[in-house]
């Protein structure tokens, strides 16, 4: 049917390279954010240093017997609420940051965005 229709022929000719292109080269795969967990245990962030991709979610879980928090340093640009034993808090990571527990200031951690 298309052969008899000059307009249809031109459309086929135009469409062909696109079909070939789309079948031969794939677009970059869209990154699917993942979730990582940092355990707060024995008065430490474990792991203390975590490498993630931008947009990944990090969950901090307090497994200790005392309350903690998770606070960006040095400017406190983000912070969890106080996390009682057993509580958790999550955040989508946008950039590399250092953080600490503002209750126990010697507890420190680091997020590295690849």
């Amino acid at each position: 049917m298309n052969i008899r229709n000059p307009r249809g022929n031109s459309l086929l000719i135009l469409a062909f390279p696109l079909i070939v292109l789309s079948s031969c080269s794939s677009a970059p795969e869209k990154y699917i954010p993942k979730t990582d967990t940092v355990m707060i245990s024995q008065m430490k962030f474990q792991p203390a240093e975590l490498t993630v991709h931008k947009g990944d979610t990090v969950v901090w879980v307090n497994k200790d017997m005392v309350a903690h928090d998770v606070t960006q340093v040095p400017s406190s640009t983000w912070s969890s609420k106080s996390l009682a034993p057993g509580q958790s808090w999550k955040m989508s990571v946008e950039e590399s940051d250092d953080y600490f527990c503002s209750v126990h200031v010697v507890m420190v951690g680091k997020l590295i965005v690849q």
Partner: protein
Amino acid sequence: MLKTFAAWAVFPMALLFLQPQSGFAQQTPKLADDEIASVAVVANQNDIDFAKIAEKRSKNAEILKFARTMAADHQSVIDQAVALVTKLKVTPKDNAVSKKMAADAKKTQKMLNAKSANSFDKAYIDNEVAYHKAVIAAVETVLIPQAQNAELKALLQAVVPTLKTHLEHAEMVQSHISK
């Protein structure tokens, strides 16, 4: 004077718990689980009481923050210790060690309350460093080895990292106050 005070503060605990190489040939006290529970509660309550004095008397933000942390953390430990002994149907039993610790804490409170406003912060944080060192030694060398019940032993073991973090925090504050 302050060094004397710090030594005085740690002396009773060291005398009670530390090994003979301290120079005081004391025997390690033998404690049953109900007595260990009592010692644990008293040790935590003492530091809460010191913190309450600091919250009343200090105007230093770092001292106040440290004191609030001590009060909250040690109360949390007491709550979990009480929950455990309730579950185990153990009643904390007063003993020579817990009585001496409570009596010594009263003397420390009196000493802290008698300090001038200018010397209070250093006296408080020096005592916190000494007290945590003594309690860590006691928990590690006396309470954990002697605890018979596995859950009580596990609770005591879980407390040690908290105490060590407190000590590290206290030493950091002390280095600022000493300047």
